[in-house]
């Protein structure tokens, strides 16, 4: 097992290296990030030349990449300079965006799992019943829905037509505390939390519906498969009551593939966050990615793509490990 893990971990390094290099090449292809600085009247052409030299942008692609990679691994210069947020380095910019994305991605994922696992089991235990068809339809709806359109429609219905939720942003600029307008950062923590939750309700809902569909289907088919296994029949035959059969014998085996899928759901989560954040104007990682790519903010885009690639690779790795941990029948060698 340990040897297997070490070998797998070593295999990941070339994959990550390849992804970063190809992404670097592609992102560089989008255009010269320093050329956009010319719009600023305070920046002289010499300054641009100097910046280009400092960041090794006047050297061939491969050398430029090596310098970038070195700085990414040992961030002395903070992963480069951000064109969109002048004066701040990329690491700072990204760090400031992480909490909000983490908050709403993690919340939506946990909610999706908590909702879909019991529903999936129920669906499987009542196969071909009316509620099974209803849940199946709901699951397919979640999987087939273009997230961006669902987001826009929810915004239109619940923020524009009826003002139940705010249309955009991660929090209000001001909160009313004891009859006074107080800046968000100075309001009590609990009020900050409620306000943020109220703002994130719609985007979280979009992501939950999107994820629930797939989880529900997986859980249902996994449970269906287990339901007909010999050991379940044996348990029933020896007179164990239904509850125990389902929760002790069937559920524990049916959940195995689901646990491993959590690690594999990262790419979808990243894409989903990118779309929903862009639509709901939430200043998190996803929106930053889209903006960085669209405005040739090369260092920001590269740092984010690399982080995503690492997350996905780690997710796959964790899925592998979990698979062996939760299922003692699987032995890696």
């Amino acid at each position, binding site marked *: 097992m340990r040897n297997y893990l070490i070998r797998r971990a070593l295999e990941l390094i*070339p994959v990550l290296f390849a992804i970063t290099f190809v992404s670097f090449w592609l992102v560089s292809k989008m255009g010269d990030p320093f050329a956009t600085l010319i719009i600023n009247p305070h920046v002289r052409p010499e300054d641009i030349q100097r910046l280009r030299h400092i960041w090794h942008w006047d050297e061939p692609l491969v050398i430029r990449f090596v310098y970038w990679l070195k700085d990414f691994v040992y961030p002395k210069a903070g992963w480069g300079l951000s064109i969109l947020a002048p004066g701040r380095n990329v690491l700072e910019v990204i760090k400031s965006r992480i909490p909000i994305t983490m908050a709403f991605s993690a919340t939506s994922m946990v909610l999706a799992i908590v909702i879909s696992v019991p529903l999936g089991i129920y669906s499987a235990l009542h196969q071909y019943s009316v509620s099974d068809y209803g849940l*199946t339809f709901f699951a397919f709806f979640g999987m087939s*829905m*273009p997230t961006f359109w669902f987001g826009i429609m929810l*915004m239109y219905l619940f923020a524009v037509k009826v003002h139940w939720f705010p249309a955009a942003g991660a929090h209000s600029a001001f909160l009313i505390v004891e009859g006074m307008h107080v800046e968000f950062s100075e309001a009590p923590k609990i009020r900050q939390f409620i306000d943020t939750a109220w703002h994130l309700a719609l985007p979280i809902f979009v992501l939950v519906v999107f994820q629930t569909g797939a989880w529900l289907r997986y859980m249902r088919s996994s449970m269906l498969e287990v339901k007909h296994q010999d050991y379940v029949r044996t348990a029933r035959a020896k007179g164990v009551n239904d509850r125990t059969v389902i929760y002790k014998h069937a559920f524990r085996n049916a959940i195995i593939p689901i646990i491993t899928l959590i690690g594999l759901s990262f790419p979808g989560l990243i894409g989903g966050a990118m779309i929903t954040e862009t639509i709901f104007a939430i200043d998190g990682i996803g929106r930053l990615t889209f903006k960085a790519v669209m405005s040739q903010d090369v260092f920001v885009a590269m740092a984010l793509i690399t982080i995503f690639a690492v997350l996905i690779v780690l997710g796959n790795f964790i899925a592998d490990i979990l698979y062996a941990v939760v299922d003692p029948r699987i032995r890696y060698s």
Partner: protein
Amino acid sequence: MAKNTYIDGGTTTSETYSYWRKVFQRLRKHHLAMIALFILGLLILIVVLAKPLSFGNDPFTYIESVPWIARPELAPPGPGHPLGLDNMARDAWSRILYGGRVSLAVGFICSLVGASIGLFFGLIAGYFGGIVDMLVMRFTDFMLSVPVLPIMVVLAAVIRGSLAAIIFIISIFSWMGVARLVRGEVLSLKEQEFTEAARAIGESPARIMFIHLLPNTMAPVIVASTLAIAGNIIYEATLSFLGLGIRQPTPSWGNMLNGAQTFMLTAPWLMWWPGIAILITTLAFNFLGDGLRDALDPRLYR
């Protein structure tokens, strides 16, 4: 396989015929899949008949004026224009019809290209094994670890423009699943007697792979490709929505929604129908794929 059945008829014909007939019989019992198939047929018919169905409107013409409102841009629905006019005063209904051609074509073609690439890689990896297998599977791992949507956006920003570019961008990310499936199937198929027999009479690896192994891996590939069509349609729509996919003036369901958020307050009717069209199509493909999975997999059929 097709060639064999054509030439010598006989047992091969009746057997393959009855296999697909059984599949179809099982599919027919799957009500949701049959409804999906019907809806897809209807959709294809509608987009093929886009011209006669668009009430004499052209998706590219800017309409000078409409009688029921002062400005033709963003005009609400009215006689002759059932879904109103878009922000450039073009008929929204005819754009939905013609946009459907683009969206469906992109979905189909990307899925087809993806399946072909996946079949090829899966076959060579599974059949040759060893170093070929290692290289192909590492490359598949690499593609699976790419953050798809951000990289698609970068790619679309680099190779801006044509329909072919969009198809290329989506296709290169839709073959990995098929490759893995096919490789797995081939690994078990190549140990079976019929492969050994083919090798024994001296058939070339290419012939064994494409004539003997490929047809036997088709069932999971068909399912995966059907489901991939839905995913590809959503990818196209998302890219076009972000302004990086199909470019104006060519309509697609995605780029019709490109300005939807901006016009949400003034012309909310514009954002309903392209989205509903996408939803119906992807739902239908997902249901059909699900039905096909049940029909093609005899183990699941109880």
